[in-house]
């Protein structure tokens, strides 16, 4: 094994009693203080983002995991078939689904099921994205919204209406509408 002997630096007397080093340190901190103070004066901070006024929103990456939401397709049909896979996979058990039947009079009765109720408790949600990953119908997605607030626990539970509101419309082929299948 090769040894590397690191010499202790030879200090002058004024460095040993912290005299010159102390002044040097004060100079460094004062430099930082003055530089930062100058940038602060016009509220033009270089590093710190002044949050409510400045936001990252337009710089969020594509894979950002925000709040989960349900989506409809171009024709306003619910993509979710209430298979409850997301409910089962959800690690903190934030999702609660009550499945409902699509009445036979509906032109899309062939899909058979849609959620009667779909609640996501945003206090429990950990934004892991497993629901999105497990969904066979590409009905649930993690959006880029991140500021979820509410004044009560009940308010923090997103119901079906709210989830579709956040999710909006998403285009693209989903097999279950296909007449031939």
């Amino acid at each position: 094994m090769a040894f590397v002997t690191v010499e202790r630096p030879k200090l002058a007397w004024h460095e040993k009693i912290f005299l010159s080093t102390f002044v040097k340190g004060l100079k460094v901190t004062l430099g930082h203080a003055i530089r930062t103070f100058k940038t602060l004066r016009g509220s033009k901070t270089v590093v710190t983002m002044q949050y409510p006024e400045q936001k990252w929103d337009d710089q969020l990456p594509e894979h950002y995991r925000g709040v989960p939401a349900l989506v409809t397709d171009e024709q306003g049909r619910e993509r979710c078939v209430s298979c409850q896979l997301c409910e089962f996979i959800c690690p903190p058990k934030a999702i609660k689904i009550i499945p409902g039947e699509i009445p036979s009079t509906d032109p899309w009765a062939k899909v058979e099921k849609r959620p009667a109720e779909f609640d996501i408790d945003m206090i429990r949600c950990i934004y892991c994205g497993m629901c999105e990953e497990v969904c066979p119908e590409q009905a649930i997605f993690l959006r880029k919204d991140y500021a979820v607030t509410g004044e009560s626990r009940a308010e923090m539970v997103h119901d079906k209406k709210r989830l579709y509101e956040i999710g909006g419309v998403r285009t693209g082929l989903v097999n279950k509408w296909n007449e031939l299948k």
Partner: protein
Amino acid sequence: MELFLANLNLTFLIASVVKVIFLTFMVIMPMVAYSVYAERRVSAVIQDRVGPNRVGMPLTLLGFKKDLQIFGIGGLAQPLADGLKFILKEDFTPRHVNTFYYWLAPCLTIVPALLTAAVMPFGSELNLEVLGVVQPIKMVIADLNVGPLFIFAISSLGVYGIVIAGWASNSKYPFLGGVRSSAQMISYELSLGLSIIPVLMIFGELNLSKMSIYQDANGWLLLPLWGDGLSASRWILLIPIAISFLVFTISMFAETNRVPFDLPECETELVAGYHTEYSSMKFALFFLGEYAAMIVGSGLCVTLFLGGWSIPFAPVLSKLTGLQFHFEAGNTPLLTGLLHIGTFFAKVFAFIIFFIWVRWTLPRFRFDQLMKLGWLVFFELALANVFLTALLLWLVPLK
């Protein structure tokens, strides 16, 4: 009873009460609050952060154009918000503590710190003839002839607060903090006391107001540039004075438990030290006590070495401008008196900024280094300095 009432000096009594209330609640308390704010802002800019800048003085609500800001920096109401938070927080007393001493400790920390302010001359005289007060009022609560001794006697009681807090908390980190603190404060009290003996020898005086008056006329101890200060003996005496100043200032850092000597409450080792188990207003009292001690310490340092309330080059300025900047017993205009008060607090404030600046510059000493510095360096240095001053005073006596 009648004799007692007849002998009662009503002006003196009212003036004293007003001074006590003014100094404690209108100067020291807000100064403590704003030192904490300054600490947060200065530490922030030193570390390239922003610091608390949101809680502004909302003058816009009152119809002003802009919120109140200093140098374009907001957040000036932060101390008020902090205070409100401390009052509204739950005052939690853990089950395992010794309740009586646990409650006593915060009071024992803040009371000595505020008591010592009594002998601090924070201004020269206020000539209140406009209000019908005939005699000018001295701007010191108690004009004791043993000023520095009183301060040392009372401020050394402050260690009891910390020791009792550490012991009564009945938990290991506060206990270690209390033990460390008592060792540290007792050690540095020696060098602190010894370091000002040369100064007292030079003044030949133990009254802090008279020291200020002397420095006003004859140049500050560290800035002997006018009056008798221009004599050779004063310049030769600068050597022991500089040593005194160094030892005093550094010991004061240790006495007030500031970085680099903040071992009683070093966060990395002792959680929060002696006040780990404290919450809400009791914790705030420790905080207040610590900062009040800092302010009084700075005040003492300013009074002893940097001329107290005196304006630099005051006699020279008076001669040049024709206005009176220096102090003249019984003949100081009201404006000059007010200016003296402002000067004193400006100096103290500058000192506190220096405290903060040092805190965010230096790392913490090890405990053995701290003890070694106190007992093997400063104690001897201060002691030798006493003899050096005596020798110099004998060789080149002051007028």
